[in-house]
């Protein structure tokens, strides 16, 4: 279908964007890469009067390490994250996750910050941000504020961003010594929405895991951290008994929605499978 009519303005600066958003309120939508917004407009699921294009804010785009923080600008394209040697070194979880996002043509335009701000529970970046203990930098007309990823995602397509604010960047602690990261997901075809996905990281000492994070996507209304399964897998060597306990803990704590093709039980089974595989890779000798 064709999109409904709307006006389009390229914001010249963040301040200009904040003024436009203040003036037009809910009639305005922000566009960066547009890879979700334009599809919803073409299907007439959304009918804004104005699109405010923020893609030209060059200082909100790019990847850099400052001390122990990896900073990724909100307007950085998915393929830029995917190809970045800095990301591969300091947050390999993101490099592993990137190829799962849509297809190449989508990743060339879609932005890192756009996917975080949209907060689709089936998306890769939100789960990675929670697993990496990232901090989201939110900018508004009166200044910036920082929100931890665990508090940023508040429900289906819902984040801590308030009307008139924009996501500016994401700050990620660089990978520590002895830390390993692992991303995996299951989908019916490559590039489809994940039926289940898992962003995992841990400090690894032989067959012992600590500081473990298991964050699932497509298993709830937001990225879901499996704290009980994490606890079951820590505190001693990974063996069959520990894996069985973690499997049971994971199935008990998850509360997924069924979808058109997967029941709740199937979703839990797939999540448990992803967890076992991730643990096996985390403790594998490199």
């Amino acid at each position, binding site marked *: *279908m*064709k*999109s*409904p*009519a*709307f*006006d*389009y303005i*390229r914001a010249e600066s963040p301040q200009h964007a904040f003024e436009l958003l203040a003036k037009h309120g809910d009639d305005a939508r922000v*566009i960066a890469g*547009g*890879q979700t917004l*334009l*599809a919803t*407009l*073409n*299907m007439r699921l959304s009918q804004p009067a104005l*699109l405010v*294009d923020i*893609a030209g804010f060059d200082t909100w785009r790019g990847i850099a390490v400052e001390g122990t923080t990896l900073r990724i600008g909100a307007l950085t394209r998915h*393929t830029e994250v995917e190809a970045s040697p800095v990301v591969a070194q300091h947050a390999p979880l993101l490099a592993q996750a990137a*190829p799962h996002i*849509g*297809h*190449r*043509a*989508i990743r*060339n*335009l879609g932005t890192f910050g756009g996917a975080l701000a949209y907060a689709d529970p089936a998306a890769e970046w939100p789960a990675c941000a929670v697993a990496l203990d990232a901090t989201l930098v939110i900018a508004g007309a009166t200044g910036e504020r920082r929100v931890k990823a665990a508090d940023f995602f508040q429900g289906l397509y819902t984040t801590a961003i308030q009307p008139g604010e924009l996501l500016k960047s994401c700050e990620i602690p660089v990978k520590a010594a002895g830390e390993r990261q692992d991303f995996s997901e299951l989908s019916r*075809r*490559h*590039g489809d929405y994940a039926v289940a996905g898992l962003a995992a990281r841990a400090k690894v000492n032989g067959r012992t895991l600590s500081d473990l994070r298991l964050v699932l996507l497509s298993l709830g209304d937001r990225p879901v951290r499996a704290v009980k399964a994490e606890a079951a897998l820590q505190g001693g060597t990974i063996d069959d008994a520990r894996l069985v306990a973690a499997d049971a803990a994971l199935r008990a704590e998850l509360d997924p929605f069924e979808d058109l093709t997967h029941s709740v039980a199937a979703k839990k089974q797939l999540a448990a499978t992803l967890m076992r595989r991730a643990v096996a890779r985390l403790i594998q000798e490199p």
Partner: protein
Amino acid sequence: MKTPSDHPTRRVRVTVNGTPLTREVECRKHLVDFLREDCGLKGSHLGCEHGVCGACTVKLDGQIVRGCLVLAAQADGHRVDTVETPNPSKRLKALQDAFVEHNALQCGYCTPGMLMAALELVEQQPDAQREQVREWMSGNYCRCTGYHAMVDAVCAVLEQQKAGRFMDEPVEARA
């Protein structure tokens, strides 16, 4: 009910297949409608029009995009290349020849998008194996031939590239 005369428009300047063009377009118009209706270039097709099928794949500043998920207004000041570029690169020409040779099309509707997607693969992933070719091309749907012959065609061009056939045409650096 709005009529098209109330629709906001914007003047866009886009370099299409090497030719700078200026057009007044509706803000809501996506890039492929712009190419087809305002530039007379019918090579890029529309299938699903919501970013799933890949028939509308074109290059924006040298990178493939879904033409239905980019506004003409967003392309203002940028460069667009389509399958009907009058001076196809050697890689594009080789892909077109390989598609014919391998019977990699039947109705041809998906072919322009397939070719543009395959072109970026050949340019950016010269060492891609068959499995990676399949994964890369999975963003483009074909509803008549199946994909086997297309993957054969793309793999054949990758082999030609390895044999040095395009050495005199280096790939442009990514932006």
